[in-house]
């Protein structure tokens, strides 16, 4: 009896070894352990044995059954592994082929610069505001200390629609709007970027261009001063153009500020030695700025004895050109897809 069981085990082992796939294994399982298998028959036949032999033989048969089961299980695992291995082999692809092109758009360089400026000034407590592009003579000129016949109106040859309406020549118009809109006459800290228009069109001037304008008005006792303007613009220029830029304030003339300055930045291309970009001067003019003219405060409802502050403005195209190394301002308005699509990633910090 014992030898018969051993024999069974041996045959089973032999068969399991030769198994090739899971189907064969399933069949074998039935053959070896199923109801009609020899093991089952042996167990069924236990009843005919003597009570002394019965537990002994029973234990032997059960042991053999367990052993066969374990062998089958092992074989099953091995086959599964083999199948997975085959599946992976079959599914292996050329990972150097390109990924699906998920269309990615791009943000216009001028708007990139606007967003950067807005974020910077919001972080310093300025409000971002906007105003109309179709502006009135009153807000574009009169309220900025540029009465009818003022020679500086010539510097900004304008596109008039009627005697009253024109396309704004400067975002400074928004300064006047901010002051008038503030009926409580409380301090103002604002920044405004947008489109402006002048009646000129050549290689370095576009009839449509972008400007950004900043204005700070506060109580006289807080002394918002030229030194504060300098410090503020230092932060602006270092963020927008480069950490190593030097600033130079050059006295100038604007009707809406007094004193007025033009602000030059040391040439970031040559480092101030002189090159074609800075026309050998080592400096590049970037901003206009100054202390808000008392007339402007007065016209817009702020008492110049009680309030004071500064204003500044700059062209957006030049900033974008400097930042991205764009050689010609006209590229910004041509909207060539091959140009636009270059600005499709995050700006570096």
């Amino acid at each position, binding site marked *: 009896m014992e030898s018969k069981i051993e024999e069974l085990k041996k045959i089973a082992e032999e068969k399991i070894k030769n198994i090739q796939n899971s189907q064969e294994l399933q069949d074998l399982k039935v053959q070896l352990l199923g109801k009609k298998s020899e093991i089952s028959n042996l167990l069924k036949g236990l009843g005919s044995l003597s009570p002394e032999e019965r537990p002994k033989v029973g234990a032997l048969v059960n042991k053999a059954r367990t052993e066969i089961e374990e062998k089958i299980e092992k074989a099953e695992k091995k086959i599964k592994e083999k199948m997975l291995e085959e599946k992976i082999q079959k599914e292996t692809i050329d990972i150097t082929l390109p990924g699906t092109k998920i269309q990615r758009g791009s943000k216009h360089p001028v708007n990139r610069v606007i967003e950067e400026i807005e974020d910077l000034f919001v972080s310093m407590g300025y409000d971002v505001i906007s105003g109309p592009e179709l502006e009135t003579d009153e807000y574009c000129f009169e309220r900025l200390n540029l009465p009818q016949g003022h020679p500086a109106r010539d510097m900004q040859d304008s596109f008039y629609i009627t005697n009253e309406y024109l396309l704004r020549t400067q975002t400074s118009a928004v300064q006047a709007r901010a002051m008038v809109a503030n009926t409580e006459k409380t301090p103002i800290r604002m920044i405004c970027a947008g489109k402006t228009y002048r009646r000129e069109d050549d290689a370095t001037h576009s009839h449509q261009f972008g400007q950004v304008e900043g204005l700070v008005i506060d109580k006289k006792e807080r002394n918002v001063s*030229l*030194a504060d303007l*300098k410090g503020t613009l230092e932060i602006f220029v270092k963020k927008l153009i480069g950490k190593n830029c030097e600033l130079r304030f050059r006295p100038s003339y604007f009707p809406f500020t007094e004193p007025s300055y033009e602000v030059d930045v040391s040439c970031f291309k040559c480092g101030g030695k002189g090159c074609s970009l800075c026309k050998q001067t080592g400096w590049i003019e970037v901003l206009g700025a100054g202390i808000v003219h008392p007339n402007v405060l007065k016209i817009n409802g702020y008492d110049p004895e009680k309030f004071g502050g500064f204003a500044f403005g700059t062209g957006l195209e030049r900033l974008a050109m400097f930042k991205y190394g764009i050689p010609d301002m006209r590229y910004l308005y041509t909207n060539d897809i091959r140009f636009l699509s270059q600005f499709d990633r995050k700006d570096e910090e």
Partner: protein
Amino acid sequence: MKLSTNFLKDYVDIDVDVKQLAEDMTRVGNEYDYAGKLINATKLVIGEIVECVDHPDSDHLHLCKVNIGKEILNIVCGAPNARKGIKVIVALDGAELPGKTIKKGIIRGQESNGMLCSIAELGLEHKFLKPEDSAGIAELGQDAKIGEDPIKYLQMDDGVIDFELTANRGDLLSILGMAYEVGAIYDKPVKKVDLEHKESGEDINKQFSIEVKTENCKKLLVKKVGNVKIEESPTFIKNRLIASGIRPINNVVDISNYVMLELGQPLHFYDADRLGNKLVVRMAEEGEKLTTLDNVERTLSAEDIVIADKTHGVGLAGVMGGLETEVEPDTKNIIIESAIFDSVKIRKTSKKILRSEASNRFEKGIDPERTTMAIERACKLLEEYAGGTVVTGTAKYDVTNNKEKEIDITFQDVNDVLGTVIPNKEILEVFRKLGFTYSVKGETIKVTVPTRRLDISIKEDLIEEVSRIYGVDNIQGKLPVVPMRQGSYDKTQREIRNRMIALGLHETLSYILINDKEVNEYTLDEFEPLKLLDPITEDRNTLRYSMITSLYKIYEYNKSREQKDISIFEIGKGFYKKGEVYGEDTKLCALMTGRYSSGLNNFKNVDFYVIKGVVEEILDYLGYNGRYSFIRKEMPKEIHPGQSAYINVNGTDVGIIGKIHPSVTKDDVYVFEINLDELLKKKVGKMKYKEISKYPSINKDIALVVDKNAVSQNIEKVIKSAGGSLLTNIEVFDIYTGIGIGADKKSIAYSLTFSDMKKTLTDEEVNNLMEKIIEATSKKCGAELRK
């Protein structure tokens, strides 16, 4: 303003390199375009031709031996006037002349160690050259010393700075004004102007009268100078005019220009014998004719100021004299006019006729003191350099307020505005350097501003002067000390922009000006287009209303450059007049054509549903989910009527979407435009968490055969209302036409999701709902279940 540094040195004693001077002037607010020498040639020396013979192998060249002091050079020269005994300008080996470098060499076999120069070769502008200056080599006078610098001998060793002055600094349009500015920088006194001259004969007022009939002339002075002899000006006058950019004519005309340059007051000289005995200043008659110096007959308007004699106009005040009374070579007696005309009127007239040195100065404003000074100075120079005799007296008209302005300012004012702690003494130093007088009482300084500084009228102007002369570079930057606050901004536009970019569109920046013929494209809205009064070109004479016009142009531009996949968008403005209201709307516009996405064995071309997907994506993103619909209505003629819709949010049309009409382009180009101002008026609720059902949901697909022209939006509505609250989602997943269903039919397949928040749905419940849905669609839409 071109500044001659030699001229400047008449009035202020400085010894500064011209470039340094230009830089220092820039620091105080006076920018320049050019700073350098009048003559930029190097290695020039005076020589004498000691021998001159014909070149053996040439019919025009000469072989010259030229004594330059240290040695005698052999030089080959082609000038016809080269001859023994004349003093000449020798450019030595290595000399740099404008446009060329001189090198030793062999010319047709003969050694040549330099070049003999003409005046033209020194690099003067063409307009300053006389015929003889380029016809042959320059012949210097016999007093020229061999071996010395010929530029010095010619009195052309001058420096020139071309300033770009700001509009408010009219005072710097004169040498004297520049001298005050330079004097302030280097702390040097300004010398007095020499006005000394004799006067004789009967007083002018007995023989000549003046009358001012307009308030646009505030001051008029007239003097007479007799017996002038017209000839060439002295060299220094000629050269200073040239350095200042003005062409010398003759001594008399040159003196009027010289005084204008020197003192900033334009003068006009009349030939007294052709003028009559009266000068009138009046406004021109409308249509009045006047022939100006340039021999052009001008038609004047009532806005122009005219100088006239008893009967008719003789000059266009402040802009150009009349031809009739011009100073000619035979002129003997001169009437000098020194006046102040209204700057705005002069600007208008000169803009129309001619911008001149004179009009530029009148436009910027004239110091009344200079009016007087200039006429006296002109008399002095005419006496000295034209042999004139000055007639006694001056005919005068003067309604100027010639008082010097007094401005009170405190030391604290200065330091508050500048954010500095400049000591009192240094602030006073600035005023002293500028030549302003002042007195101090306690904390207050009373500053008296000289009449030349027309730009200074309030204390802020004085603060600017302190910052200029003290030096802005000496002011330390800091940040305002103000209460902290939160900066604010509306990020909606930025969010939309970022979303559009994420959806794969490129942002453009287009011009708002278009041709008036294009302004009614892509819209059926009623509005009055806004046209420019004075456009630069007809192509850009009107403000756009629809942005689609702009984007379509960008598409065309790119298409003509072989670009096929174009997905672009822009947020911008459209402008209009509606009724009496002038306005502008912020719009989001997009154009898409070509491939939208691509990959291996897989790409998607833009079609109506792609661009509609973009619109839906934006609307959903902004929180309008479930509140919008697409409505078919009459479309602008540039849009395909079969593939287009109005975008309607809560009952308001906020934009249009569609394919560009095949009559416009054969390509499949899709656009949409949404009026963001209109859209964003529709308020959106807060984003809030909604409970997720804990019970499983059940999906059912249903394919309905409907009429070919049936609209899915309507069927969906019917399904929704029949499905009730348990139907939580509907999606279209297939459209089929063709075999198996009628030719005038289509099948739309929907995937429906049912779920209940409170319990697990049974098959029976869902099947009941499905039956209701089928029944409703059959009744209301004539739909049949596809088998």
